[in-house]
């Protein structure tokens, strides 16, 4: 595998060419097809319709095999890189092949439902491609030279430092620091549910709130207390920055993962709808 190529550029976009070939072939077939004198209308029941439908069904089954292939670490049937590349391009070609198969006939039935499912699966897949190409870079940029673990250790250190510094301040300020440092280690404040992770650094942050409160209270301090408060604020701000960095990190990781919760289950729903579509057409032939 050539590390430098993205999945879109795999082997000089070999599968892009294949997918374009499939699309152009499908369009040419559709355009050249004379649906005959009975109904001057193209639809899935003509021989061209069956051909395009068969191709579409084959492509869907093929695309779903990626889920099998990526779990086969020992196999040498192509590289996973290549499989993913073909998954992306051939998946996009379905938009053309299956739309032409439908002959633009839509209705409130399982046939159109299967089509709609396919569109949603492809749309989530398009987001997936964007996520895979976009977020890993952001993850690296966000953490800089650090790792998630080292950042967490630093936050814990800062917490201890803040608590120690706050001991020199009046009860009021001390309480604010105690509250904010205690909560920062609680799971719910960083990460947590999927929605919290997706929210990233836009959540209500107790550390940020504590900083603002300290700034207000600290304006009245003089001498040693003012100097300690200054150090405390510096530490709290650093901590706040680190926490936001982790939240962003978790958000990027969540975005890399969340689309699969639509893509995978809906593609299985699509598989079921596809089976129902094919069986129903021939059940009442």
């Amino acid at each position, binding site marked *: 595998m050539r590390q430098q190529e993205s999945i879109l550029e795999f082997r000089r976009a070999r599968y892009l060419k294949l997918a374009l070939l499939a699309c152009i072939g499908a369009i040419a077939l559709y355009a050249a097809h004379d649906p005959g*004198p009975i109904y001057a209308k193209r639809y899935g029941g003509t021989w061209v319709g069956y051909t395009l439908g068969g191709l579409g069904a084959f492509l869907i089954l093929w695309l779903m095999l990626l889920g099998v292939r990526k779990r086969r670490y020992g196999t040498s049937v192509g590289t996973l890189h290549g499989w993913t590349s073909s998954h992306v391009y051939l998946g996009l070609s379905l938009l053309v092949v299956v739309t032409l198969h439908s002959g633009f006939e839509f209705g409130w039935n399982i046939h159109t439902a299967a089509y709609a499912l396919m569109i949603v699966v492809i749309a989530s897949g398009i987001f997936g491609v964007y996520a895979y190409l976009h977020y890993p870079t952001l993850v690296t940029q966000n953490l800089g*030279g650090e790792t998630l*673990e080292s950042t967490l250790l630093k936050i814990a250190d800062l917490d201890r430092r803040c608590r120690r510094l706050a001991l020199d301040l009046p009860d009021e300020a001390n309480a604010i620091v105690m509250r904010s440092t205690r909560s920062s280690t609680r799971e719910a404040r*960083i990460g947590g549910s999927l929605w919290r992770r997706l929210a990233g650094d836009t959540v209500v942050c107790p550390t940020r709130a504590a900083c603002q409160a300290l700034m207000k209270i600290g304006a009245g301090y003089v001498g040693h207390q003012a100097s300690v408060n200054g150090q405390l604020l510096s530490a709290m701000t650093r901590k706040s920055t680190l926490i936001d960095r982790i939240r962003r990190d978790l958000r990027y990781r969540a975005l890399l993962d969340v689309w699969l919760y639509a893509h995978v289950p809906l593609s299985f*729903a699509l598989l*079921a709808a596809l089976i129902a579509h094919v069986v129903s057409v021939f059940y009442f032939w």
Partner: protein
Amino acid sequence: MELLVTRHDTEDGAAREQRLPGSVFQLGRGSQCEIHLPDARVALTHARLTLGASGATIEAVEQRFVHNDREVSGAQLAAGDTLEIGPYFLKVDVASSGAVLAIAVRLSSRVSTRASSNALFRVLTRAPRLSKRRLSYLAFFGTLLVTLLAPIASDLLDRQQLPLAEPLAAGAVQAWNPGELLRSHLTFAHECRACHKVAFQRVPDTACNACHSSVREHVASSKMAGSTAFTLSETRCAQCHRDHKGKLAEAHSDQLCAQCHARIEEAASRAVVQKVSDFGKDHPQFRLWRVGPRDPQGHLAERSNLKFNHTLHLDPGGVRDPNSRRRTVLACGDCHEAEDGGARIAPVSMERHCSSCHALTFEPQVTKRQVPHAALDEVERSLREFYARLVIGDVPAGATPPRDLPRLRPGVAPSPEERREAMRIADERARRAVRELVQTRAVCSTCHYVERKGQGERTSWTIAPVALTSAWMPAANFRHDKHAAQTCITCHDVRASRRAEDVAMPDIARCRQCHAGAQGAPGKVASECAACHRFHGGTNTWH
């Protein structure tokens, strides 16, 4: 110069001394650093310590550090100072035994341990409770149940005629319906089995014939020899008639007709019809039923054996009514009445349309009665009965017996001789009346062609049989009611017609003034073949 470093962060906890020569020392987690602080919280090269003539200084390289509890980026070091870099706690001591500076390195007890942060890490990135695999199973089997298993199950139950199965099947199977049915099929739209008799088998013709039993061949199979056409038994109804294509979709297509009719001489060498592919561009001139070839002047003539003058009857000044002596202006509809809901025009009837003016009276001074509009022998028979009644004195109301008519005495039963004489007189008077009608007054020949045979008493007359054309173009499914917006003379201009032989049927050019072919044309009605013709034959407006 030399730096003395005492490490207290060793594995076994025993203090270990290092003497480091030089004047510049790096602190960091990288192994190239002289003061190696292996921890993730320490930067690769965190700070730099410099020994100089004026003492020791430390400045940050990559990250700031804590000096005497203050976060700084550089500091002058003195004995007793403390430094915190990550988890490391460095204490500056008085130099001894030749070293410029002594530093004790400890792992701070005040910072988090790795173990506790690992727990935090696990909590933060724990896997969501939602499993993609479980969701996928749910989505697959849920969809399969709703879209496939439920409709099949309800259809099977429906065939067992179980209670509740029917509405269930209707709902479930409806989801399979790929498109709207034809309007006429909507009554059994929920009964898929009405047409789809057997699962996984195509719709059989028997399903269609259950209702459409009278469908006829396009061409009688006896005439089909030598043509490329096929009989109904050689194809399926659904080959042409595909349903679920919308309420109005029917198998009407000019292309379909043109497949054979555009090259009819190849498709059916014995066909009587001519080549046609499109009404607007490629359709032969209309051929009229029972009308012979055109005369040398190019006129068609209908041999109806009637006489009629349209010009006279349609005189804008009106025609004189012989009874009222008033003039009446006639319109087309006075004689040509609509029938069949206006689709067709009924044949003209003597009794209804002519007799109010053209009375068949005889001996007007005797009676106002008329002879029946019938064959001459029937006319004579009814006259004979009339005169016989006069002779025997049974005078019908309104009749005045002629003075010269011998009559029997009323109230006395006639003798056989008297009866025979009465019949002879009636016969003679009847013959005389017929002769007067046909010959003297020429009442019949006003409209009919009358042929005379014989002389004197033996004279007989024959009225040429009337052959009116009721369907001029029986193959066309023309409806007058759909053309009610037009006047009669738009298509049938008889204003200058003085003879019954004149044909006033429109030619194709007249129709094309409003009708274009299937593709349509600006300002014209798009008319495909099926607008006028029926594929399966069968009844149309005209037969």
